[in-house]
C-alpha cells in the first residue's frame, strides 16, 4: 500500500532512459524514409509506405516515450509499482522496438512475414504493458484526476491495440472487408485521442502545476474531459457503423481539446516562477498546434496538414519537453539518493542552448513539412533533412545527460569528503 512512496521502488534509471534514447532513433529512420521515398507516395495517406511511416512514428517515437515515462511516473503519480521493473522493461522495450520495425517494414516492403512478426511482437509488448497497468491502476486507493485519466488511457489503449490487431489480420489475410475503413478511422481516433491525448492531458494535470508552479487546471476539465473523450470515441465507432453523421462528435472533440489547450496555456502564462524555461516553448507550441489542428479537423479532416500538425506539431514537441525535464531530474535524483554530494544542477545536465538549437531545427522541419503540402514537394526533402538533424540533436542531448550520470556513478560518492 505504501510502496509507491519509496524511491527504492522506482525503476532503475536505465528503464526510462532506454526508451527515451530509442525514440529519436526512430525519428531519424522516419526522416530517412521520407528522404528516400517519392513525394507522391509519402503524401498519399493510404499508401503502404505512409502506413509504415505512421507506425514508425506512433509506435517507435510516441508510444516509446509514453511507455518509458509511465514506468517512471506510475510509482510517483499513482503509487503503482511494477514488479521486476528491469525484466518488464527489457521485454517491452525489445518487443516494441523489434515489433515496430517488423510491422513498418512489412508495410513498406510489402512482406507478410514481417507483418506477422510485427503483429506478434507488438501484441506481446502492448498487451503486457496495458494489462499490467490496468491491474495496477484499478487497485489505486486514493484517486486523483491523473489516475482517473490514466485508467481511461489504458482502456482506450487496449481498444486501439485490438483494432490494430484486427486491421493487421486483414492485411495479412488480404481480407479487406466493407467495414475496413471504419475500423481504420476508429483505430486512428482511439490512438490519437484516446491513447496519446488522454495520457498527455492526465499527465498535464499534474505536471503543469508541478514543473512550472502554475495554477491547477479547472476541476471540470480534470474530471470530466477524459471521460467525455472516451465517450465520444465509443459514439464515433457506433455512429460510423450505423452510417450516421459524425459532425457533432467532431465538434465535441474540437471544443473539449481546444478548451484543455487554452486553459493549459493560461495556466502556464500565470506560472509563479519567473525564470526562463525553454521547455515551456515545447508545451506552448504543442498546445497551439492542438488548437489549430482541432479547428482544421472539424472542416478539413482529410487535409494533409492535419496529421502533420497533430503528430509533429502537437504530440511530439510536448513529449520532447517532458524528456528535457525528466532526464536531468532523474540523473540528479538517482545520484543524490546514492549519496553523491557534488552533482551538476539540472541545468548543467543538458545545456539550455543545446535544447534551443534542437527546438529551432525541429520547428523548421515542421514548417517545411507544412510547406510541402501547401507550396512545393521540395520542402518534403528539406523537412526530412531538418527532422533527421533535430532527432540526432535530441538523441545527443539525452545521451550527454546519461553519460554525465554514468561517469559520476562510477566514482566514489565519499570522494568529496576525503
Amino acid at each position: 500500500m505504501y510502496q509507491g512512496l519509496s524511491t527504492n521502488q522506482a525503476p532503475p534509471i536505465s528503464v526510462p532512459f532506454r526508451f527515451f534514447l530509442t525514440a529519436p532513433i526512430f525519428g531519424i529512420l522516419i526522416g530517412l524514409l521520407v528522404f528516400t521515398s517519392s513525394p507522391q507516395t509519402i503524401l498519399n495517406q493510404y499508401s503502404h509506405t505512409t502506413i509504415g511511416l505512421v507506425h514508425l512514428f506512433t509506435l517507435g517515437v510516441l508510444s516509446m516515450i509514453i511507455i518509458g515515462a509511465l514506468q517512471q511516473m506510475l510509482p510517483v503519480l499513482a503509487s503503482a509499482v511494477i514488479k521486476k521493473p528491469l525484466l518488464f522493461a527489457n521485454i517491452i522495450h525489445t518487443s516494441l522496438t523489434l515489433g515496430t520495425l517488423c510491422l513498418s517494414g512489412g508495410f513498406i516492403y510489402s512482406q507478410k512475414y514481417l507483418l506477422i512478426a510485427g503483429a506478434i511482437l507488438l501484441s506481446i509488448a502492448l498487451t503486457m504493458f496495458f494489462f499490467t497497468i490496468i491491474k495496477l491502476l484499478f487497485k489505486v486507493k486514493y484517486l486523483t484526476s491523473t489516475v482517473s485519466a490514466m485508467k481511461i488511457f489504458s482502456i482506450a489503449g487496449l481498444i486501439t491495440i485490438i483494432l490494430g490487431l484486427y486491421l493487421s489480420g486483414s492485411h495479412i489475410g488480404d481480407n479487406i472487408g466493407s467495414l475496413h475503413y471504419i475500423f481504420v478511422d476508429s483505430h486512428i481516433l482511439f490512438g490519437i485521442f484516446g491513447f496519446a491525448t488522454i495520457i498527455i492531458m492526465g499527465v498535464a494535470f499534474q505536471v503543469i502545476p508541478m514543473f512550472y508552479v502554475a495554477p491547477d487546471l479547472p476541476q471540470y476539465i480534470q474530471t470530466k474531459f477524459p471521460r467525455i473523450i472516451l465517450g465520444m470515441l465509443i459514439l464515433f465507432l457506433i455512429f460510423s457503423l450505423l452510417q450516421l453523421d459524425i459532425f457533432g462528435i467532431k465538434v465535441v472533440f474540437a471544443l473539449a481539446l481546444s478548451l484543455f489547450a487554452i486553459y493549459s496555456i493560461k495556466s502556464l502564462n500565470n506560472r509563479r516562477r519567473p525564470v526562463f524555461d525553454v521547455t515551456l516553448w515545447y508545451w506552448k507550441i504543442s498546445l497551439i498546434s492542438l488548437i489549430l489542428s482541432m479547428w482544421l479537423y472539424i472542416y478539413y479532416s482529410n487535409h494533409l496538414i492535419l496529421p502533420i500538425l497533430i503528430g509533429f506539431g502537437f504530440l511530439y514537441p510536448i513529449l520532447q519537453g517532458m524528456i528535457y525535464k525528466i532526464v536531468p531530474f532523474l540523473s540528479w535524483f538517482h545520484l543524490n539518493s546514492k549519496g553523491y554530494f557534488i552533482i551538476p544542477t539540472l541545468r548543467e545536465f543538458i545545456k539550455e542552448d543545446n535544447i534551443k538549437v534542437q527546438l529551432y531545427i525541429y520547428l523548421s522541419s515542421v514548417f517545411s513539412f507544412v510547406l510541402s503540402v501547401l507550396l512545393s514537394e521540395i520542402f518534403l526533402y528539406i523537412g526530412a533533412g531538418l527532422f533527421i538533424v533535430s532527432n540526432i540533436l535530441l538523441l545527443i542531448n539525452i545521451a550527454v545527460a546519461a553519460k554525465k550520470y554514468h561517469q559520476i556513478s562510477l566514482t566514489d560518492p565519499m570522494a568529496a569528503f576525503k
Partner: protein
Amino acid sequence: MTVLSSHMRADHRACDDEFANMENVVAEGNWDKASEVFENFASDLNHHFDMEEDVMFPAFEARGAGHCNPTPVMIMEHTQMRNVLKQMREDIKSQNKDHFFGLSETLMMTIQQHNMKEEQMMYPMIDESLAHEGQMLLDEMKAYPRKDHK
C-alpha cells in the same frame, strides 16, 4: 477529517509562493534583499519539515504505519532538500546567479515530486490513521518552535 492534510497542503502552496518570490528577487539581482527572502523561505521550508519529522510522522508511526513504512523515505528526501538549500545559501553569498538558478530548479523539482507523493498518498493515509487526534496534532505542529538549520 482532513484538518492535517488541508493545513499541510496550504503550507506547501505558501512555500511555493515564497520560493517564486525569492527567485524574482534574485533574478532582479537585488542580493541584499535576496539573502533576506531566502532565509525566510529556508526557515519556513525547514519548519514544515520539522513539523512532519518531529510531530506528524512519529504520531503516524505510533498508530502503525505498516510494514512498508514510508516515513524514512520522506525524511531522506527532506535531507536532500536541506542539502540543496545549504548550497543555495552559498550561491547567494557569492552572488552566483547562474548556479543559483540551476540549484533552484533542482530544488523546485525535488520539492514538487515530494509534495505530490505526500499530498496524494501520505496525507490521505495520515488523515485516515489520525482522524481523532487531527486537530490536537495540528495545534501542536503550529506551535512547534523553529530550529536553526544553518
